[in-house]
Structure formats: structure tokens, C-alpha cells
């Protein structure tokens, strides 16, 4: 029998990007919150600038729950899913915000109303066949105050492009109106970034620095970024990357109302005879516990949120918690970031010191920022020219057919070219489809014997058309800046496990097609909420973290304001 613990007001499963943000407004409001986290506290001592440790081995993670539960994947339901690669997320207090790239974008207003806006501008027939996309239950304007709050609480650097309708050409002129500037100026540019920005302007485009959860100057009693070059899958040794373990979580702990339990491996949620969630079962070091709670928020990333609900079967929910409408796991998609473009330049880029969140963005070809009348797709891609170079990966660069990739001829090549390559990052509008979903794998289990998640999904014609189109634009840009070689990655097919995994507990007003309501609470079990990108129904062309954090704050605030209705 598990040890019965005393009841708490709220349990949050997962102290990462979303759960780590939601804990703060809840604790500040006086609610007693228990944060169950599979990983441990890590700090600066764990964050050596060491490429072998960060990028080739397993970093300092003391707990590898994600890896033991990594999903299987397949392109279509006609094939058998297999496990490929490793799990992209990590377990720790702060979750993957410890080692993420920290690009912190707001979504474009169009992303909230893809169906309505597409029908209005091009006709309803332009929604891709088989897509289950819906408008969000609210628009950008409703989320704006939460974006604004999180940008300050977490600490985001950037250049505003639209403050209350005033367009600033230094920033993103396509962004939705924001109520004020970023709390910090953008990360600096190098001479190469200046050169790429100039090339973009020559093409008639609008380059601007991207937003980052990285201090560009001292903020919140922590220093500005050191640009040391090991930010990609690395923690920050000077605490300039604003992961939740050094921002909102410690502030929540300081209220005295948040208790973080580390190494807590949550197995299932319990449901009472009234259909309400009664608490959470978890294991620490082989000991089982039951934590009763008035409200449970799952914030354990898309795969694990879906998995926990599907594993939590009860009389009230025989097919999994909150799944009586068969929507848990539906409307899943991995953000389409494949189909990259690389380039070789005839000059050194001086890119050894920098970070993936530092660079030049172009949004002229993102979302609905251009006329799609003559295109065979909707949506688009964000073109991102960043800094990301480390010795081992630099030495492993594409040789563009100019040399074998080893031997004496390669030594000559790499001595000249190690700092002359660039790889762009192009995030593209990705839509949910009827044929793409998550469920429990019928064969593969974790060490406790519970099935892992199975991803069934592939990129469809709309995504692949965006991919080809944005590759053309990226090649134009590179050529304009003087690239002598350009290489295009394959457009891809199957959706593997991703750091940008959306849906599965989608948010919407219609309980027939969505798991949670516009506030993030279950349509079926009223004291169950979901946090993270699993509630998002569209991706846009930008990283999901800031949006999932703004949504998490909004859900937490709604819970505080409606505690009586939700918890009683």
C-alpha cells in the first residue's frame, strides 16, 4: 500500500517550463502547492562548457526518466512503431529550460485563428485535407497580458516591433501588438549577423534580432550572457539563461507555499466515484506514495501528459482520464523544423562565441505575412540565422563535396573552413491531422512495466510545401550574403519525438474535439488541468515555450480566481 500523505490544495506534475511557471502565481495566492519532479536540483557547478558531456554523452542528468520512457514512432498506422534516437527532453527542477535554446517567441495573431483567417482571405477550401485544425478559443489579444507578465517574470530580451500598433522597423513588424518594450534589449549581433541582416534588407526583407530567455544585461540580480558558445544543450554557468529553476520556482518556494519533491516518479492519477481527480500516485526510490489534492495540474510535457491520462483508467474514465470523448492523444504534431539549409562561406564567420538564441530572424515568409493566393499551402516559416559552433561539431561539418570527410585532404579542408559554415533553423507552420496521433504502444514498456507513448505521424503536403518554399528563400538569403555552397536537407516524412510536441490534450470550447477548455481545465474532470504545449492546437512558426508559459500563468490565475468552483 502506498503511503498516504496529507491533502494539499494543488499538485503540479512536473516542475519544468510550464509547471515551474504556474507554481508561482498559485503559491503567491496562498494555495499550498506540491510540485512533483522526476529530476533533481542542478546548478552552475553542473554546467561546464564541455561539448563531450553536453552534446555527446548524457549531461549531468542524475535522473533519466524521459529516456526510459522515450516514445516509439511510425509514419502511419500501417507500420510498426520503433524507438529511434533518444528522448529530447530532460528531467530536473526547471526541466528542459535548463538546456534549451531559450528562444522565447510570442505566436503571431494568425496562429490563433487559422481557420477563420484562411477562409476569409483565401476560402475555406484552402484548409488542408484531413486537417483537424480549429481556431483557438480566444485570440492573441487575450493572451497578450500573460505574454507580457511572463516576459518580465522569466526575463526575456528582444527588440519590439509593434508596441500598441506603433511599428518599429528594428523589431518584428509582423508581431502582434505588445503593450510595451521587452524588459531587456536584444542579444548582440556579430559582424556576420550584421552582414546577413544587410543581405536580407537588400532582398527587401525585414531582419530583426530574435527574443530570448537569456539576459542581455544584468537582470533579476543575475549577470548578462557570456556568449561562451555552449548554450545548445548546455546549462548556463553564469545563470544568464532564465530557466525556471532560477526564476519562478525559487520565487514560489520563497512564499513558503510550494514544496518541491524531487526524484518523484508519477505513475497514475486517482479518480473518485464522483469523477473528480482525488490525487496522484508516485514513487520515490522504490517507495510508493499517494498525494491527495483538491486540484491536479499535469505539466510533464506532451508525451507524458498524454501518457499519464491514458494510463489512469477508472470506472468513470474506462479509456483513460478525461478521455470519454476519445480526444486524449488526438491532434498531435511535432513541429516541422526539418528540411534545413546549410551554407559555406568564403570567409570566417567568427561564430565560436554565441548561442542559438542570438541571431537574425526574418518573418516575411512566416504565418500569413505574405499573400498565399498563388501558393499551394497556408502558413510559412521563420528563417533564423543563429550562432552555434563548438569544436567537435565544427570539425564534423559538411564538406560540400570539396573533400572526403577524413584523411589528409580533410585536414586541409577543415583548417580553412571550420568557421565558414552555417546551418539555418527554419520553424514551419505545422497543423494537426486526423491521421497523426499519440496512443500507448502495444508492446514497448518502461522499466515499471507501463506502456510508453507511440507517435503515429508524418508531415503532410502542406508542411512539405512550406519546407520547399522556405528552403528557396533561405538559399536566396545565403547567396545574397556571399555563400559559395548551399546544401538542403531532405524534407522528411515521419514525425519523431520532438522538443516541440503539440496537442494530445488540446484546448477548445467543444468537448467533442478537445480535452481541456479555454482555461486549460478538463471538459470531463473539472479539477484536472493541463499545462504545456499539449494544449496548443497550432504551432505557428516559432518556438512554443513562451506561449506554453503564458498559458500556464493564465490557467493558474484562473484557478486562483475560481478556486471555489474548481476545487470544491
Amino acid at each position: 500500500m502506498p503511503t498516504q500523505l496529507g491533502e494539499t490544495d494543488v499538485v503540479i506534475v512536473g516542475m519544468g517550463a510550464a509547471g515551474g511557471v504556474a507554481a508561482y502565481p498559485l503559491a503567491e495566492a496562498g494555495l499550498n502547492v506540491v510540485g512533483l519532479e522526476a529530476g533533481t536540483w542542478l546548478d552552475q557547478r553542473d554546467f561546464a562548457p564541455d561539448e563531450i558531456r553536453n552534446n555527446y554523452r548524457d549531461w549531468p542528468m542524475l535522473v533519466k526518466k524521459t529516456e526510459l520512457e522515450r516514445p516509439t514512432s511510425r509514419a502511419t498506422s500501417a507500420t510498426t512503431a520503433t524507438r529511434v534516437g533518444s528522448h529530447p527532453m530532460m528531467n530536473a527542477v526547471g526541466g528542459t529550460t535548463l538546456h534549451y535554446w531559450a528562444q522565447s517567441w510570442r505566436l503571431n495573431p494568425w496562429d490563433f485563428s487559422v481557420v477563420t483567417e484562411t477562409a476569409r482571405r483565401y476560402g475555406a477550401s484552402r484548409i488542408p485535407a484531413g486537417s483537424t485544425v480549429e481556431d483557438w478559443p480566444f485570440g492573441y489579444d487575450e493572451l497578450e497580458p500573460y505574454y507580457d507578465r511572463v516576459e518580465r517574470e522569466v526575463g526575456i530580451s528582444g527588440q519590439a516591433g509593434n508596441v500598441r500598433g506603433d511599428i518599429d522597423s528594428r523589431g518584428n513588424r509582423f508581431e502582434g501588438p505588445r503593450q510595451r518594450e521587452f524588459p531587456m534589449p536584444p542579444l548582440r549581433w556579430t559582424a556576420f549577423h550584421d552582414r546577413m541582416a544587410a543581405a536580407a534588407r537588400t532582398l527587401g526583407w525585414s531582419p530583426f534580432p530574435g527574443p530570448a530567455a537569456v539576459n542581455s544585461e544584468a537582470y533579476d540580480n543575475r549577470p548578462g550572457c557570456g556568449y561562451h558558445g555552449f548554450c545548445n544543450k548546455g546549462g548556463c554557468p553564469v545563470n544568464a539563461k532564465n530557466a525556471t529553476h532560477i526564476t519562478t520556482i525559487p520565487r514560489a518556494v520563497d512564499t513558503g507555499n510550494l514544496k518541491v519533491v524531487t526524484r518523484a516518479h508519477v505513475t497514475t492519477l486517482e479518480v473518485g466515484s464522483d469523477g473528480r481527480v482525488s490525487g496522484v500516485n508516485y514513487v520515490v526510490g522504490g517507495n510508493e506514495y499517494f498525494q491527495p489534492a483538491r486540484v491536479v495540474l499535469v505539466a510533464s510535457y506532451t508525451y507524458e501528459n498524454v501518457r499519464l491520462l491514458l494510463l489512469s483508467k477508472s470506472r468513470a474514465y474506462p479509456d483513460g482520464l478525461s478521455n470519454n470523448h476519445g480526444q486524449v492523444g488526438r491532434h498531435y504534431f511535432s513541429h516541422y523544423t526539418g528540411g534545413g539549409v546549410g551554407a559555406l562561406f568564403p570567409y570566417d564567420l567568427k561564430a565560436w562565441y554565441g548561442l542559438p538564441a542570438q541571431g537574425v530572424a526574418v518573418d516575411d515568409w512566416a504565418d500569413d505575412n505574405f499573400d498565399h493566393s498563388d501558393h499551394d499551402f497556408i502558413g510559412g516559416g521563420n528563417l533564423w540565422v543563429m550562432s552555434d559552433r563548438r569544436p567537435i561539431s565544427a570539425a564534423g561539418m559538411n564538406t560540400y563535396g570539396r573533400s572526403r570527410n577524413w584523411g589528409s585532404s580533410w585536414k586541409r579542408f577543415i583548417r580553412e573552413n571550420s568557421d565558414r559554415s552555417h546551418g539555418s533553423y527554419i520553424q514551419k507552420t505545422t497543423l494537426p491531422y486526423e491521421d497523426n496521433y499519440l496512443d500507448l504502444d502495444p508492446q514497448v514498456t518502461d522499466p515499471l512495466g507501463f506502456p510508453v507513448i507511440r507517435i503515429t505521424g508524418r508531415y503532410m503536403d502542406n508542411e512539405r510545401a512550406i519546407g520547399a518554399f522556405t528552403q528557396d528563400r533561405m538559399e536566396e538569403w545565403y547567396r545574397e550574403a556571399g555563400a559559395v555552397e548551399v546544401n538542403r536537407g531532405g524534407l522528411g516524412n515521419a514525425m519523431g519525438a520532438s522538443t516541440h510536441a503539440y496537442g494530445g490534450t488540446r484546448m477548445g470550447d467543444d468537448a467533442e474535439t478537445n480535452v481541456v477548455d479555454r482555461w486549460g481545465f478538463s471538459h470531463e474532470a473539472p479539477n484536472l488541468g493541463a499545462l504545456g504545449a499539449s494544449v496548443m492546437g497550432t504551432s505557428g512558426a516559432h518556438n512554443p515555450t513562451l506561449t506554453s508559459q503564458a498559458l500556464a500563468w493564465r490557467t493558474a490565475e484562473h484557478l486562483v480566481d475560481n478556486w471555489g468552483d474548481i476545487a470544491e
Partner: protein
Amino acid sequence: MTLPPKDPRPAISRRDLLKTAGAAGAAALIPDAVGAVTEEAPATAPLLAGPMTNLTASETEILSAMVDRLIPTDELGPGALDAGVLQYIDRALSEAESDAAAAYRSGLAALDQYSRYSRGGPFIDLSTVDQDSALIDVQIGAATGAGTGFVGSSASFFNMVKSHTWQGMFGDPKYGGNVDFTGWDLINYPGVRLAVSPEDQRSLEADQLERARRSAYDFGLFE
């Protein structure tokens, strides 16, 4: 803001394991590509540190010859053997990459068998030209199939050794490779720094930034 106390660490850290696994014996000189003096042969014979703890002497000879072809010691300067790539691989096989030891043993035996089968002699006795052509077969998967000795695609063995060789050549010296910053010098990496000021970046862009020759662990800040 007060941070909660850190979780207790495991009693034995990975670094402790590394300490015990490191420090191989005295260096020994062996001829490069025995009996195969060609126009591609290096002018000086590279150093091979003492016996590898995870591979036999003959396996070590084959691996040594292979990594010496991947990043040769040549007129452009030191190569993989000079940088301690064998020591890197040996330490890796003792801990983080221990699962790969079996793949090394079977792959090195297969490389040797493929050399005898396709080039008429043991790998270490082939000319460097033949060693390279055999390795190209292995790299592209053409050494796969009956009689070759490779179980599965030969490319996976090649890619594994290449990946570890690059890690040993270009990774942090802490792990036994990149001796004297050999790899970082080859690619003109200006070195590990924790803070790069705007002035530092401008110096780098003007080719005037002094190279920082240190391991990440020389800062004394990291576990």
C-alpha cells in the same frame, strides 16, 4: 531568493571513475603501417601510449592504424594519435561508452578480415593507399555482407570510430584526448571562455583574440 539545498550526489562520481581509468602506462613507439612505405606515409611515426585496457594488443594496433588514417600525422601537423585519441577511446570504453566495447572488438576483427579478404593482407600491413580504400568501403557500407566479417552494415562501425575519434581530437582535454590542444589548434578554435565581451568578439573578428588554452575544468568551478 534562497535556493533549496542540492540533492546528495552519488558516492562515486563519474570523475572519480575517470581518474581510476586514466593514466595509461609508458608511451611506446610503434611503426606506422608496418612494411608499407608509400608516398603517403608520414614522415614521423606517431606516438602510441601504453596498452589499452579495453582492447587487446592486436586490436589496439588495428585501431591505431585506422585512426591514424582518419586524422593522419602529416605535413599539416599532428594527427589523432598525437592528440591521444586512443587514450580517449580507452577511457570512454571504461565508462560512458562501455556498451560500445563489443562493437569495437567485433568491428576491428571485421576490418582486419575484410582487409585480408579484399586487399590480401592484415589491415596494419596494407599500404596507406590500400588502408584508405578499404576504409572507404567500410564507410560507405560496401564492406557489408558474407565474407567481410561485418555483422550488419560496416558503415555503423566506421561512423562509431569516426565519432569517437572526433570527440577525442576536438573535445575537452579532460577526457584524455586533445593533448596539447592539438585538435583545437587544427581548427583554430580560440578556446574555452566563460565570458566573451563585445571587445573580445571584435578582437576575434580582427584576428587578434589570444587563444585561451584551457580545459573547462581548469576554471575550478565545475564538477
